[in-house]
């Protein structure tokens, strides 16, 4: 007995909002635009909550057929939705955080031009993200995948008159294309070998296969290609370069798309495809390695960044790395757990950062902030909650999820664990660095230029209540979000990951769940590992306190002593420049030489020009037919008619 959930309403509500605002919004008042956007988004959230209330009555996985889409031979891809525990968590995260950020955006964007456009895009994003989450086949998921890419592009380039924003949008789009390419090839392989893209069918057909333990095979290839797609969308090495640039977009966008939801789509997709990865240990290992490296790599870059949003962006990449690391050790539920808590605290951090930026009038450089603690207390306290959560202090949300990931990683390899702990230390360090630089010490902003102009001091103000309310809610979630406990969370998600996990490569999670006794034996070692991780976080806090609160001159000394390495970190390891020389410049040169000068000018243009010249020359000779003499024209007609008659007679008598 399964009630009809009308899942299709959930994505379509934001689409309706996007359509109304996009088509007619320019004539509406700001109040009307925001109430439409909030109304439809809130309705989607309410729908999601209602789905939760009905959840116990469902026989999972629940799927809902909406309309036929592509049917060719045996292949079939429909507009159909799929709901299981995994989708439900994602659904709640997307609609809940999305709704909060919508509320926040009303306050944040109130003064901006293109208000209706912003909310139309935001609702559009919600539509695609929900489609992605609820899709019951890879193709519909891909539609959502591309759709969120589009929304992301539109929103990064929201201030499209600003050159950097426009190019950042293009960069995000193009880098994502590389990932999508891999994703698409993976889809083609799936169609070729399994004849379907529907999750249920594909997994059903893969289940009987053996893990490709010695060496690599088809599933490994598919897994790697899927990982390429995930790396593009979720900003993993080597395709992470777009995410920091994406900070050109409005801050709520950074919070919603580039921290809380869209970038986790890759994690979701890998978790969703766990059946494939379970049977492709090579691919899984690649996922783990990429995740671990990304976590470390971007954390080191984050240490040296001065732009408050850039720090958060690298932090996001780093946390995503954690999630992939978890996926890579087959701890999918840990990964999704971290995804959820990360959505809370990273959304919170971005929103709080937005509030800070709002307060200081658009300044993003942390070196020009400081001492804001007393001036914007609400922002400060919520940000504090977020900072402690991401640093992994007990009892904040980040602690539970990160701890789970590290523990799961340690069961596979202590290398992952070691790097993870070190990254946790770095995370703690740069987050508290941000915290101290922003909220403690003396204000170093405009005051320097204006010599303590009290007017500017007074200009620093707390954000409106509309912006603070989401902050408070998210702060509460950041604090409490982890108390649900990784164990319970894992048990909740287990049906989704148990399905078809029969022959896992690592047999870790299965064993753990299969025999709780065994797990108890490991509790002692887990406690030890937890203590180490907590220590790393505390060390990060202490170092940050030392360097950025007590002795502010220390960082420069250290930087000087590190020399070239510090330069490299500040310049993000020169990855952008490397890409520019390796890919962008050759591509530009090739386009210029071959495509533009070679093909476009010498072939296409030449064809058109020569065609025109030829036509004119032929016309020059033929125009003498146009004698102006009526009877000549009649003569031509007679000849033509004779030709037609002859042709018809010939055709008819043949």
């Amino acid at each position: 007995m399964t009630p009809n959930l009308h899942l299709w309403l959930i994505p379509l509500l934001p689409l309706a909002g996007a359509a109304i605002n996009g088509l007619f919004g320019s004539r509406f008042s700001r109040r009307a635009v925001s109430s439409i956007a909030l109304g439809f988004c809130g309705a989607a959230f309410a729908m999601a909550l209602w789905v939760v209330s009905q959840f116990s009555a469902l026989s999972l996985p629940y799927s809902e057929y909406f309309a036929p889409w592509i049917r060719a031979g045996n292949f079939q891809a429909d507009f159909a939705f799929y709901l299981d525990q995994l989708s439900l968590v994602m659904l709640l995260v997307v609609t809940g955080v999305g709704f909060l950020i919508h509320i926040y955006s009303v306050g944040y964007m109130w003064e901006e031009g293109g208000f209706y456009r912003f909310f139309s895009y935001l609702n559009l994003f919600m539509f695609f993200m929900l489609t992605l989450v609820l899709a019951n086949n890879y193709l519909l998921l891909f539609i959502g995948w591309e759709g969120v890419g589009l929304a992301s592009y539109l929103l990064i380039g929201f201030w499209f008159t600003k050159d950097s924003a426009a190019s950042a949008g293009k960069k995000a789009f193009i880098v994502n294309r590389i990932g999508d390419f891999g994703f698409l090839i993976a889809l083609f392989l799936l169609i070729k070998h399994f004849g379907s893209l529907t999750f249920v069918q594909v997994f059903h057909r893969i289940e009987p296969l053996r893990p490709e333990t010695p060496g690599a095979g088809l599933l490994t290839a598919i897994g790697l290609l899927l990982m390429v797609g995930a790396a593009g969308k979720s900003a993993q090495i080597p395709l992470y370069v777009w995410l920091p640039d994406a900070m050109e977009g409005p801050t709520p966008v950074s919070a919603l798309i580039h921290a809380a939801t869209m970038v986790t789509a890759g994690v979701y997709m890998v978790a969703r495809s766990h059946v494939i990865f379970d049977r492709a240990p090579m691919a899984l290992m690649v996922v783990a390695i990429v995740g671990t490296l990304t976590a470390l790599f971007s954390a080191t870059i984050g240490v040296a960044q001065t732009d408050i949003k850039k720090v958060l962006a690298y932090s996001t990449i780093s946390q995503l790395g954690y999630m992939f690391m978890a996926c890579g050790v087959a701890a999918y539920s840990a990964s999704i757990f971290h995804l959820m808590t990360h959505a809370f605290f990273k959304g919170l951090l971005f929103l709080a950062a937005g509030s800070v930026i709002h307060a200081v009038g658009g300044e993003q450089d942390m070196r020009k902030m400081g001492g804001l603690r007393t001036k914007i207390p609400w922002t400060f306290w919520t940000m504090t909650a977020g900072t402690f959560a991401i640093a992994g202090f007990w009892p904040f949300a980040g602690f539970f999820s990160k701890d789970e990931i590290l523990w799961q990683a340690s069961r596979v390899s202590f290398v992952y664990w070691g790097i993870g702990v070190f990254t946790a230390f770095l995370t703690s360090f740069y987050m508290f660095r941000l915290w101290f630089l922003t909220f403690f010490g003396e204000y170093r902003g405009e005051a320097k230029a204006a010599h303590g102009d009290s007017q500017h001091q007074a200009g620093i103000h707390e954000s409106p209540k509309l912006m603070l309310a989401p902050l408070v809610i998210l702060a509460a979630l950041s604090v409490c979000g982890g108390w649900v406990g990784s164990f319970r969370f894992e048990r909740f998600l287990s049906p989704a990951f148990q399905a078809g996990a029969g022959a896992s490569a690592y047999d870790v999670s299965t064993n753990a769940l299969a025999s709780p006794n065994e797990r108890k034996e490991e509790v002692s070692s887990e406690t030890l590992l937890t203590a180490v991780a907590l220590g790393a976080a505390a060390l990060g806090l202490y170092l940050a306190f030392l360097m950025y609160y007590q002795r502010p001159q220390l960082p420069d000394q250290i930087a000087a002593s590190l020399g070239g390495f510090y330069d490299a970190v500040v310049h993000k390891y020169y990855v952008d420049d490397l890409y520019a020389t390796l890919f962008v410049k050759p591509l530009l040169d090739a386009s210029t030489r071959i495509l533009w000068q070679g093909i476009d000018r010498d072939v296409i243009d030449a064809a058109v020009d020569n065609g025109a010249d030829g036509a004119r020359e032929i016309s020059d000779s033929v125009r003498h037919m146009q004698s102006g003499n009526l009877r000549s024209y009649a003569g031509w007609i007679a000849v033509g008619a004779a030709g037609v008659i002859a042709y018809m007679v010939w055709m008819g008598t043949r």
Partner: protein
Amino acid sequence: MVPLSYYLILSGILFACGVTGFLIKRNIITIFLSIELMLNGANLSFVAFAAQWHALSGQVFVFFVMVVAAAEAAVGLAIIIAVFRTRETLNVDRVNLLKL
């Protein structure tokens, strides 16, 4: 009993005469008359085919051809009058500005 193809050939001959008139005549009115001759040839084939298929639609079509011919004659003759008024000639070889 007469084979219907005789009627059709007669209509073809009339049509051919019309075409020839169009080709060799210089007087614009005569050319117009040639057009009417062609229309008449076509009409005969309409009536003949109507007899062939036992469908009166063929005869009805003749009326439409006649009406169109009447309209054409009215406008055409008006044009001829206008041309004659401005160019003082009815010779189509002298009305050849529309070239190159």
